[in-house]
């Protein structure tokens, strides 16, 4: 299976990365990690590329990396379709001060527009 993981360097992204690595280690799935910036996350992709490389190295998982430019939601959807991916994985489900689960704009766009199966990691 070809998996596309969206990674923005946030806590949610880290959880999604960890869960994905756990799975890929067992299945040997083909993993591509798409790096993108959000207003709240680190604003330098190079800054969190190092984290990704280290986590994948520790897990012994090979991966390809793609740096996304422009609107991250539409870039992920386009890449998933053009690259023949079977699944998109993203962090999804920040909680408000009250504990309400809410989706950020990128996740919401991907859910509504992707023709690929989407997994949200909580």
């Amino acid at each position, binding site marked *: 299976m070809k998996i596309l993981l*969206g990674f*923005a360097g*946030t*806590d*949610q*992204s880290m959880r999604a990365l960890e869960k994905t690595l756990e799975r890929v280690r067992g299945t040997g799935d083909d993993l591509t990690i798409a790096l993108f910036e*959000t*207003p*709240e*996350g680190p604003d330098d992709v190079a800054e969190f590329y190092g984290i990704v490389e280290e986590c994948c190295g520790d897990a012994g998982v090979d991966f390809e990396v793609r740096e996304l430019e422009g609107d991250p939601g539409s870039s992920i959807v386009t890449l998933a379709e053009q690259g023949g991916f079977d699944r998109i994985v*993203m*962090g*999804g*489900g*920040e*909680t*408000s*001060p*009250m*504990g*309400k*689960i*809410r*989706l*950020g*704009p*990128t*996740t*919401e766009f991907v859910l509504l527009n992707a023709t690929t199966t989407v997994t949200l990691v909580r």
Partner: protein
Amino acid sequence: MTEGTRPFPDDVAEDFEAPPLTAEDREGREIEVRPVGMDDKEAIAEMYDAFDQEDRAQGIPPANPTRVRDWLDTLLGDGLNVAAWDDDRVAGHSTLVPDGEGAYELAIFVLQDYQGAGIGRTLLEAMLGHGQAEGVECVWLSVERWNRRAIGLYETIGFENYGRERFEQEMSIRLLPEGDGEGCCDGPPEREGF
């Protein structure tokens, strides 16, 4: 939120009566609304234990009794809370939780047996009255877009829509004039992460 705009209304809401207060609901039940705290946790938890899961919104109330009580620890410990009581039974609960930016996030739940009898409006107004009395200046909430009944209630009370086309509608209200309360910072926080 676009840059330079403040998503809290400039206009100040009406003065809401601060609890404790009593009201008769449309079923003729005498309902008392009063501020609640940690001492009332178990009574409130029992309302959520009996709560119909179909009425959950965005993951709350939690679905199991232990998590309900952990969640209430946060709300009762950090926030302002009021409950609607039918004798010694909690029929509804509302909470204002500080968002860390000076404003407060609001939620309200009414037990299914008590819905459609006007308790929601009474409870909500009492929550806002309690907030005004405690110096809360700005309040926001998110509500699922399909929940027209709740959105209609919030609108008649004075909440205004802000934000973009999303799964949830976000709304806010100004309870006190600028500078008369705890402040609003720059409005509800932008969502983190994705």
